[in-house]
């Protein structure tokens, strides 16, 4: 396998961190410690991990309501993410954004976005900046979105723009088969969303989104194309969310047990472990060491968040603008 030892470790660490972050964050949500709705992404670890493995802090990603995995893969710190979900002043956005709006501009993370499809053109804009500055080779835009978002007009406008301007963009469609309860076979006019890429003059590739190596390889090619100035690529990553749409959802109301079982058998972490140990690329002991470290990280993240202060009352009014001459705090 053409992949360094460090990279392999990073892939596993990142996927396991996402898995445990989602499980831990759900626990905290059910304990009443989150201040709003949360959308877990466990099961979908491979797409953000396999893609972000090729990115640096100078590359930009756009994300969705199901954004924790994208954040983690882009290098955000889990303690600040947990604190954000708990609405704390130490959170990634000072407690003002919440689970659906985690961003870190220092890490090239343009923000999770709660309006389906809304973040797609932001990654196109980041790619425009790169092209404008002549730094495509070191700064590209990756847009993460779901099968549901593929029905939004803004995706189609964004694909066309990226194509006619030959921008360094990767459209990363995480097709987990459902948008809320709506199956993709009902709402999407084609079996392979990637087939639409052709109409926009870019390669469209269907990828096994439960296999981080498949994602890693496909993303490597797409990103190399972008960095070489050859324009956008569309990746459709067929994946599955293990939990419901949001924390309190009951997915068996619209998915079958057989289907869930089918994908659980394709658990991206399990297949990773099997493959690297069988091929003697990593030892079981090494894998366990990584898991243990993450377990501790999660305990620390929760503790950090729970012990963090709430934002000051003044935070309600701050950062609406950079400057504004006659602000209106609530009229009271």
């Amino acid at each position, binding site marked *: 396998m053409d992949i360094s030892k460090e990279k392999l470790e990073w892939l596993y660490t990142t996927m396991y961190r996402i898995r445990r972050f989602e499980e831990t964050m759900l626990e905290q949500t059910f304990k009443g410690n989150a201040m709003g709705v949360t959308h877990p992404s466990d099961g979908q670890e491979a797409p953000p991990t396999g893609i972000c493995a090729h990115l640096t802090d100078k590359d930009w990603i756009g994300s969705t309501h199901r954004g924790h995995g994208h954040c983690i893969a882009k290098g955000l710190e889990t303690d600040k993410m947990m604190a954000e979900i708990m609405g704390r002043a130490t959170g990634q956005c000072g407690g003002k954004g919440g689970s659906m709006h985690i961003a870190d501009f220092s890490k090239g993370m343009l923000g999770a976005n709660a309006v389906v499809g809304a973040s797609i053109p932001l990654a196109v804009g980041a790619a425009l900046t790169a092209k404008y500055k002549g730094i495509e080779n070191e700064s590209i835009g990756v847009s993460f979105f779901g099968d549901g978002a593929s029905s939004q007009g803004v995706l189609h406008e964004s694909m066309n723009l990226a194509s006619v301007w030959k921008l360094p963009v990767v459209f990363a469609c995480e097709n987990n088969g459902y948008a809320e309860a709506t199956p993709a*076979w009902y709402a999407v006019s084609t079996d392979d969303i990637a087939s639409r890429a052709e109409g926009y003059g870019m390669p469209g590739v269907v990828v096994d989104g439960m296999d981080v190596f498949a994602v890693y390889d496909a993303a490597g090619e797409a990103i190399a194309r972008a960095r070489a100035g050859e324009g956008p690529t569309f990746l459709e990553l067929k994946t599955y969310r293990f939990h419901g749409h949001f924390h309190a959802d009951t997915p068996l109301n*619209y998915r079958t047990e057989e289907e869930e079982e089918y994908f659980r058998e394709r658990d991206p972490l399990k297949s990773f472990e099997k493959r690297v140990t069988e091929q003697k690329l990593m030892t079981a002991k090494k894998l366990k060491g990584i898991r243990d470290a993450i377990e501790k990280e999660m305990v620390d993240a929760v503790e950090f968040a729970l012990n963090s202060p709430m934002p000051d009352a003044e935070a309600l009014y701050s950062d609406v603008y950079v400057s504004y001459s006659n602000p209106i705090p609530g009229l009271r």
Partner: protein
Amino acid sequence: MTIQQAISPLGPGYDGVPGEEKRFRDVFRDTLRAEMQRDPDVFLMGEDISGGFDKDTKEPLDAWGGPFAATKGLVQEFGPERIRDTPISEAGFVGAAIGAALTGLRPVVDLMYFDFVTVAYDQLLSNAAKSRYMFGGQTRVPLTLFARSGAGTGHAAQHSESFYSMLAHIPGLKVVVPSDPYSVKGLLAAAIRDDDPVFLVNDKKLINLTGFVPDEDYIIELGKGRYTRRGDDVTLVGMSYTSIACQQAAEILAADGIEAEVIDMMSLSPFDEDILLESVMKTNRVVIVDEDTPRASMASEFAAVIADKAFDYLDAPVKRVTAPHSPVPYNKGLETAFMPQPEDIVGTVRNMLARG
């Protein structure tokens, strides 16, 4: 006060009229059902309004039943043609609803959260609202839309807006804001039967409120407000959930011997100027309460009308109690501070009366 425990204080005072205490959400669904039974041209579109389909039979599962289960059960009765699940394509299906309305149907669209209005705003503004006018009165657009607004549920910046004025600003579009089970029945029925496009904004905080609802078929005339409390000392003007906050403030004030009159506007475009002026001319003081941000808001619009037409009757400046000019924050404490609370209204009234 938690949302579940709140009991809508707004009753019409129907002594002896047959009816029952019902939840807002149930009344909403029952009214949709009744309108669909009444008129076969009425049908509903939106995301997951039934939700989920069996892979083999292609039959709807009704697994979601609409946002907040608002439409649960309707697909069994009316089928997937009339309870039509859409892809996530707000501009597309709102536009298609307008096209269907222009050609003889009476569509109802569930836009889920108010914040998604903007995805479909071009269709609303340029097509729904203007077709009749710019085509010289040849056509009508009997379209109803609804969406859930309001802070208070931890949905954060992109799922919590109450930008009423963004809708009321559009000539050609009507806007209604029910505040209890009684008003949602009358306003939703009126909206669906109306031949113009009507947007019903439904504050999330109202969904589980209960209140008295007459059994009889009735509509509430679009453009009419109502008194939900009579008093001589000050007028409190509410809309949607702030009508409840006004009612609660009035009760706190009453304990101090201050008798507030409360107006629930119910319609924002057209709106009831007469009731505003009548009350202000009697109480000579007015506080307008709006969860929308204050710039170019309904609160500002009502204040302007009062200043224009009842200036000589005012004993104090018109006061507005509104959200700050900011997006909705996630943190619970900040979010609570964002929303006008009964105590904020009480404080404003006390200051106003202290002025003399």
